[in-house]
């Protein structure tokens, strides 16, 4: 792989949330290891999927990457620069290039601002427009781009449906012509019939502007549809990295296999042909994760070594990595 192709590289990233006891003399009694030593890269123009169940740390990854949260340790290299070392006042410049779309379009928009104020704010903050005429023109452009009408500009968020609100969120993210967009479960709060519209919109925008996406979701069907490569995360660790086709046709990690088999497929004829792996138990607490491989208490193929030694990510086939003692 050519190094010039890489837009963002994450090296040994850790994010621990301290647990404190006591109010006056608070003691540090432990950590929630939300993200625990993960490394990956994102290539220019690709859509990288990050999939996992609730509590696996995927949203924390999103927030740390755009520095809404400070990492505990590790490097995030964006266009050759380690952004974890950038001081707060330089961050603003960086944010032009990286933006985020949130899951819940109901809480991500300020209810007291009109759509034009919401989309216009980043334009003003970053001084990319010189006067209000220019600003209005840009707002209209953006609205049109995401499939909203010009007259929507003066309305408030509560006047819109979920799908339309997500369009507003996308327009705001696009306002500064970013290179990289982190989409954190952008379709999960939407109705089924509207979900496809937003997915299509994101794909169209990617083609038009050459955007790079980190697409985070728990929905494997959506990830399957939109992503080029996929990362599978479990309890703060990456367990598998593979190109789309490869991951779905030959998943290596038992967790990925279980995850894939648990997704119901909308076709009664496929039913008999699939083998279902039903996992036992729940996802353990990230405060006190299991020893060795974190998946071992739920793994159908557990061996002695699994509870003792933590497996490392290994490249099994070209571009296909997994962290499992079976491979």
């Amino acid at each position: 792989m050519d190094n010039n192709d890489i837009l963002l590289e994450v090296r040994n990233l850790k994010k621990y949330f301290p647990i404190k006891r006591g109010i006056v003399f608070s003691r540090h009694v432990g950590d929630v290891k939300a993200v625990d030593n993960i490394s990956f890269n994102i290539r220019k123009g690709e859509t990288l999927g990050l999939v996992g169940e609730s509590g696996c740390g995927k949203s924390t990854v999103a927030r740390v990457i755009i520095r809404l949260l400070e990492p505990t340790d590790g490097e995030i290299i964006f266009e050759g620069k380690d952004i974890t070392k950038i001081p707060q006042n330089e961050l603003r410049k960086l944010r032009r290039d990286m933006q985020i779309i949130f899951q819940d379009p109901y809480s991500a928009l300020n209810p007291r601002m009109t759509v034009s104020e919401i989309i216009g704010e980043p334009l003003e903050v970053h001084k990319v427009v010189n006067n209000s005429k220019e600003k209005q023109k840009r707002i209209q452009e953006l609205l049109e781009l995401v499939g909203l009408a010009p007259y929507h500009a003066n309305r408030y968020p509560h006047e819109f449906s979920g799908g339309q609100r997500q369009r507003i969120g996308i327009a705001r993210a696009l306002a500064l012509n970013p290179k990289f967009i982190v989409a954190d479960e952008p379709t999960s709060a939407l109705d089924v019939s509207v979900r496809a519209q937003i997915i299509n919109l994101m794909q169209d925008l990617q083609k038009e502007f050459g955007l790079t996406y980190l697409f985070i979701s728990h929905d494997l069907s959506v990830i399957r549809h939109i992503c080029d490569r996929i990362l599978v995360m479990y309890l703060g660790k990456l367990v598998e990295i593979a190109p789309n086709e490869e991951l779905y046709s030959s998943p290596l990690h038992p967790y990925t296999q279980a995850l894939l088999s648990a997704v119901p497929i909308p076709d009664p004829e496929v039913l008999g042909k699939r083998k279902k792996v039903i996992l036992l138990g729940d996802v353990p607490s990230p405060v006190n994760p299991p020893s060795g491989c974190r998946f071992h208490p739920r793994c159908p193929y557990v061996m002695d070594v699994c509870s003792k030694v933590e497996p490392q990510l290994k490249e099994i086939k070209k571009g296909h990595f997994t962290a499992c003692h079976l491979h």
Partner: protein
Amino acid sequence: MINGEFLLEVKDLSTYFFTDEGIVKAVDGVSFKLSSGESLGILGESGCGKSVTALSIMRLVQPPGKIISGEILFKGEDLLKKPEEEMRQIRGNKISMIFQDPMTSLNPVFTIGDQIIEAIILHQGLDKRSAKKKAIEMLELVRIPEAEKRINDYPHQFSGGMRQRVMIAMALSCNPSILIADEPTTALDVTIQAQILELIKLLRKEFQMSTILITHDMGIVAEYCDNVLVMYAGKVVEYADLKTIFKHSAHPYTIGLLESVPRLDVRRERLNAIEGQPPDLVALPNYCYYAERCPYRTKECLEQIPELVEIEKGHLVRCIHGEKIRR
């Protein structure tokens, strides 16, 4: 669909909500039948009336909502004509319901045991000791490990999946003939979803129980239902057996849904999104509710609200072009 004895027969049910903005026809003339041991799926998006249909069967609709007309025949007797006293005997005993969010359905200040035991004493008139024994049996049945110990735990000590198991244990503790599950897994992760749905399937066979599974997920319907009722804006738009719905769907909305959801097993270049959004229930048009979004729309569609017609045996469709567009 078989004719003859039905366990539950809903005839022309209408439930309206009298709000300040106007009358919301949440459920408008819904009819269906449920035979013994059958698993019926009610499929639709938020606001289509699927949950209100369930609440109406349980007679749990709260003001400003009111059941306006219709009959709900359970073993031949109309539930809507029963005094509240008698209805209380049916609720939980004969027809049970589980809800989407297991956290809000459990009382946080009582232990799991207290809550199940209360239901058993109330409905079956057992004394406290035998009720406790029965409660432990039920918890074991839904695969709660160490049930005898965990019966003294509070809801917050359980994970989401475990709480839903507790709800199922409670719902089944009186051997109901019908279990209504309203989006039972929407708040849960996929691997936990698979556990819960497999459990319901197993228990259905074991107890010879009928289920009504309410969901927006086509995949869940495909894997766990025998017959399917598709709802849109308070009305039934299609009603048939599982295979017909998926292979020979004849309503543009059902077809749209099937084509717009991303699938795990086939990767499409682009999703066929349904345009627009569901109509405002306060201001419904006086023609086909789906017409605005429908790719098959003709002039005639804007002239009337179509009737639900049987286009082939056991296949009901609310579309004037149903026969033509049947797949």
